[in-house]
């Protein structure tokens, strides 16, 4: 018997569509969002240059992890190679800078070259499932490091490439670290907005169906293969863009970036931050940058113990990671305060348990009527 098994109740959720948030929750979200934007805009003016530098690196890694999230969290295809795309983007950006390209051209090269490589790798690779895809994607960072060292005319070999750019324009009145912070965070914000639109829109719903059940996807006329390639390509694009941001902050591209352990730790940070959650990618960015800093204050070798233990903790008791846990806590508190029932638990160890509404459950199982099919992939307005 080689059945894939009938989907568990939790797996019948189709689409990241959430229960419409309650009014107090919506107000809370808007307030938090506005406060967050103001804080993000004001922090660099008073923080030390080193803090600005760290926060900018956080933004770069958050973008890379968002890309990983799109392919792994939303589309359900585990990639252990995201650092290779980030490294490629970093080298491409550094190449553009050292050859005197305009910044926009460097950005396009840094984002599009990895996207093309990702597309070429994905077309054959996504034919493999779960385990096998992860195995193949490990190849990318393992090959990227010796390749980067070999083509030392372009990459600077083991030494890497130093660049000197992204200085604050005269007359703006900002220091370099502040200017870089604003540029990097602004680009990251645009990429996050773009990512949000991808994952909540038609493509995101298709990703969710592909992730939950490929057979259902093809029954709905969604080509699992095509959407997996798309997810992988988007992830590579984000990886490359993140490489650009990294070089903008760090002014350096080296073989330390497209490393196997970097890719592994990005995946770990993503799961800890929250699978299939935009906030999760932000939390993961902070986690990726700050855990080594804090752990390193005690002892460098403690970083991995902390990472591994936190990852197991998430898998065992906090499905959805930090962002899932916090959002569940908020929902619980809001529910207590305003008299709503707390959401039910779900058994997937990775994704944030969203309560299943009756309409979602009905539309998740494809029935013969074309309306039933359309309602779960098409515009959600049609759901009664």
């Amino acid at each position, binding site marked *: 018997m080689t059945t894939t098994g009938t989907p568990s109740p939790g797996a019948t959720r189709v689409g990241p569509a959430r229960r419409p948030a309650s009014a107090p929750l919506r107000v809370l979200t808007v307030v938090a969002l506005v406060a967050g934007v103001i804080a993000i805009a004001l922090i660099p003016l008073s923080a030390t240059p080193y803090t600005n530098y760290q926060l900018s690196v956080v933004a770069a890694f958050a973008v890379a992890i968002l890309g990983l999230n799109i392919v792994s969290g939303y589309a359900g295809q585990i990639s252990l190679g995201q650092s290779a795309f980030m490294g490629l983007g970093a080298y491409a950006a550094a190449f553009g800078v050292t050859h005197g390209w305009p910044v926009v051209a460097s950005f396009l090269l840094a984002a599009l070259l990895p996207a093309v490589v990702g597309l070429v790798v994905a077309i054959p690779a996504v034919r493999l499932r779960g385990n096998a895809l992860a195995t193949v994607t*490990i190849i990318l960072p393992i090959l990227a490091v010796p390749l980067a060292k070999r083509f030392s005319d372009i990459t600077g070999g083991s030494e890497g490439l130093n660049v000197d750019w992204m200085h604050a324009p005269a007359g703006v009145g900002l220091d370099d670290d502040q200017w870089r912070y604003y540029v990097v965070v602004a680009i990251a914000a645009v990429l996050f907005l773009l990512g949000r639109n991808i994952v909540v829109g038609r493509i995101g719903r298709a990703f969710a169906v592909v992730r939950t059940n490929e057979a259902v996807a093809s029954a709905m006329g969604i080509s699992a293969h095509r959407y997996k390639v798309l997810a992988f390509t988007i992830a590579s694009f984000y990886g490359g863009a993140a490489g650009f941001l990294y070089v903008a902050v760090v002014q350096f591209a080296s073989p330390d970036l497209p490393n196997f352990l970097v890719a592994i730790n990005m995946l770990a940070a993503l799961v800890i931050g929250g699978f299939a959650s935009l906030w999760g990618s932000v939390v993961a960015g902070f986690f990726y940058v700050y855990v080594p800093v804090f752990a390193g204050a005690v002892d460098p070798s403690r970083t991995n113990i902390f990472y591994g233990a936190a*990852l197991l903790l998430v*898998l065992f008791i906090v499905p959805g990671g930090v962002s899932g846990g916090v959002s569940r806590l908020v929902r619980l508190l809001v529910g207590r305060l305003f008299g709503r029932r707390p959401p039910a638990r779900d058994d997937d160890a990775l994704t944030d348990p969203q309560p299943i509404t009756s309409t979602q459950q009905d539309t998740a199982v494809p029935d013969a009527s074309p309306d039933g099919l359309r309602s779960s992939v098409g515009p959600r307005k049609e759901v009664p």
Partner: protein
Amino acid sequence: MQHAIQQIVDGLAAGSIYGALALALVLVYRATGMINFAQGLMAVASTYIALTLWQAGSPIGAAVAVAIAVSLVLGAVTERLVIRRFEGASPHTAVVVTVALLILINGIVGAIWGYNSQPFPSLFPTGTVTVGGVVLAIPSLATIGVLIAVVVLLQLLFLKTKLGLALRAVANNPESSALSGLNVGRLLMVGWALAAGLGALAGALIAPKVYLDPGMMDTILIYALAAAVLGGLDSPMGAVVAAWIIGVSENLAGTYIGFIGNDLKIGVPLVAMFVILLTRPQGLFGRKEAVRV
């Protein structure tokens, strides 16, 4: 020609080490349907145990034997405490669980033994033998011999013993095995235990060549993964044959193809794995998997 034969024997010896770890991966995959990305670091931990015993004055052979025995227990404990919770989970959860183990064991090993490289004594006497004018290193020949012995023992275990029959039954169909009264949980523990023991052996074989540090098995794991995938994940013989093919081909390619050289020779098995997965996803020796809905 003599040089080529030496390269082939060295390749077979390297392939035997990849093969031991690949066998471990296959055992775990057959038992629990997971690719254990932490298998390499579990092997590193075992090798450190052997090193500690040896430094305390035990002969190296006994130290390795004890380390293998301890690893059997640790493998079973890992299955029981961690993996059991995630059996039947989605593949991406399974990948993340073993990645978590990888990172955690890396941290623990680093905390106990540090990140500096340490020399590890060879299990075999150094020296050479001359066969028909070709000078061959004794450790290489012995390594190949050890792997062949392991394969024979495993085949005997799987084909001639009741435990082996039960292990095969559980790998084939856990539900029916449970209905026939087999203790599936305990058998899965046995699978993980055997895998950990094999990993310990692989670690003790490679450590004298490359020095022992927590990252020692990272590359070996990649070769082993390639071998396991090439051989078709559920085929122990396939994994070993593929590991030998990989060991020999990368050694020859690294030596005789100028562009590849020593730094890019790891690309040989990886590209081979990629091509095989695309043309024959079930591997060279694996069974084709039918997915029913």
